[in-house]
């Protein structure tokens, strides 16, 4: 990057809850420093000023759900040196990807009195299904410390350090007793990507998979363990059909269990 000028940061929103952009504004102690280190060139949630591209770093929140957004994300890619997808919507399709398993027309008519006004795609898909993504930051929502790590890494031209191991490792790090072993609580931790700090087990509940699949997960083995705890197939399917339902490992295991449930 040219050292004489500040790198230009852009923040884009697609189909989402705005929570991952908010994580940037939730860096209360660092926000003004961040604004000092980069030129916040495009961030409509925070500023009415718009600086034209190209941008050095684009953070993209949200999934692709409309024909217009299929085109818009290509424009964003063209304008961006680096593009980072942030959050479960941008990296997996988000909770709105539950439509991918159903007939979307049924969804439209459930919510809207006049479905003919609605323009939407049959599937909610992650950014990487449409354009090249330089890095994916997981989470529903993302962890703001990890967001700061991503910003800092791109500013310094290195790869962000966001460990891809499971939530189980985080449980060990913070000293949680395993809720599944000790209390028999079904937990997605063994297959879920780290990043939250093993929050749910610290609150006596099983992980529900906000950060999506870890690197090389084994969901089949976990489902069998859940079965031994007395969890029915239908409930197992629902567990994988959450905020990262469309992430490959979760999608496949959900579909496999659904098939088994239909056969039994």
């Amino acid at each position, binding site marked *: 990057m040219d050292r004489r000028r500040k790198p230009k940061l852009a923040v884009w929103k697609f189909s989402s809850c705005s929570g991952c952009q908010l994580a940037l504004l939730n860096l*209360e102690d660092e926000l003004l420093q961040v604004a000092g280190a980069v030129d916040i060139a495009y961030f409509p949630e925070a500023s*009415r000023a718009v600086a034209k591209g190209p941008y050095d770093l684009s953070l993209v929140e949200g999934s692709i759900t409309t024909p217009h957004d299929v085109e818009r994300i290509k424009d964003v890619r063209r304008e961006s040196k680096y593009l980072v997808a942030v959050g479960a919507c941008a990296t997996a399709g988000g909770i709105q990807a539950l439509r991918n398993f159903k007939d979307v027309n049924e969804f*439209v008519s*459930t919510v*809207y*009195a006049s479905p003919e006004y609605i323009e939407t795609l049959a599937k909610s898909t992650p950014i990487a299904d449409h354009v090249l993504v330089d890095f994916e930051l997981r989470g529903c929502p993302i962890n703001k410390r990890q967001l700061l790590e991503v910003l800092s890494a791109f500013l310094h031209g290195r790869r962000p350090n966001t460990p891809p191991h499971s939530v189980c490792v985080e449980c060990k790090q913070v000293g949680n007793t395993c809720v599944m072993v000790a209390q028999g609580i079904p937990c997605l931790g063994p297959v879920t990507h780290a990043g939250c700090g093993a929050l749910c087990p*610290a609150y006596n509940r099983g992980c529900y998979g906000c950060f999506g699949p870890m690197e090389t997960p084994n969901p089949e083995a976990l489902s069998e363990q859940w079965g031994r705890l007395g969890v029915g197939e239908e409930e197992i399917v629902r567990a994988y059909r959450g905020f990262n339902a469309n992430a490959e490992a979760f999608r496949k295991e959900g579909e496999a269990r659904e098939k088994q449930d239909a056969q039994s």
Partner: protein
Amino acid sequence: MKSKTLKVEYLARVEGEGGLYIKVKDGRVAEVKLKIFEPPRFFEALLRGRNFAETPDITARICGICPVAYQMCAVHAMESAFGVRVGGQLRALRRLIYLGEWIESHALHVYLLHAPDFLGYEDAVRMAGDHPDVAERGLQLKKIGNEVVAAVGGREIHPINVRVGGFYRLPEKRELTPLVGRLEWAREAAVETVRWVAALPFPAFERDYTFVALRHPEEYPVNEGRVVSNKGLDIPGEEYDAHFEEEHVEHSNALHSVMKEGGEYCVGPLARYNLNFGLLSPPAQEAARTAGLDPVCRNPFKSIIVRSVEMVHACDEAIGIINDYEPPEEPFVEVRPRPATGYACTEAPRGILYHRYGVDGNGTVTDAKIVPPTAQNQKAIESDLREFVSRFLDLPEDKLQWQCEQAVRNYDPCISCATHLIKPRIVRE
């Protein structure tokens, strides 16, 4: 007389994607559209077939700015369906997490999204360049709100500790007490905020609104109360559907909530304040009086003062809740699903949020309806714009456009929330 068209393609400093279109013909406002092009996410549909216990976590994802509001509505609605009441310290903890969200959301809006308009800055970062102390105060207030939410809920965005019947784990007293000193600072900072925003320049603009908010006999409304208006409405939350309806209109932007017997209405801080002034804590009432804000306020631009007054109240009440807190024996009340319909109305930072669920005997959701505050305010926003533009037609074009944007931001609209009820066809002139 002149004709002109004001267009804002992409409204900034609101949560979500929307635009603005105002057409003036022969000196009269011919058309006002608050355009919403945020894509729909179909929450009511995807909730069908889910277990009741999942509703707080799923509906939280409607909005990253006010997830607690959705969680609170979901748990109250399910408890109403199953005939369970949650009282005592569990109820107090729910108020605490909700008040934390009010502080966070209000500080975000007052300092980062709205104040820059009054002072002529494009954003808070530019404002911070000239007013570093003010920006720092706003960010710290926001941070303390987040700390309260995280202390009870585990994290600030999409908290993980809320469940139907109560919480997964109770905070220890020692986890909450360190917040008292922080909140005492925040209460002072909020009083200072009231003083600061009251001195901003306000356009002379008032309308005779129908204000709708919750009212509770003993407390400023947060989680519970009857739905009342300043024009005689007084109903329990279960009767919401009998008095309000949503219109999916062939108008390029949005679906409008209306009162069946009275049309347009306004929810949010201004409505809460006008209907509940006497229930604000003494320091909040005092801050309002000192700032010259009457118990009745019909200037929507002054909602920034009201939000600040509510921050004083929220800090004050949060301190009281923590001081009185003793962990109860159980973190939650057991619920047993039964076939029923559950309802809840609570006060999100932006106004009343309504949830209704049909549930079967297994606890599976058969039907869901969610009405967020921004969907309810759209008609009022458009009427404000129509009247504002008519009165201030002679302002220079760029100034008028900016003030129109500001008039929309008066409502702190959350388009992400409203959009599951909104027509998203993209029309860009």
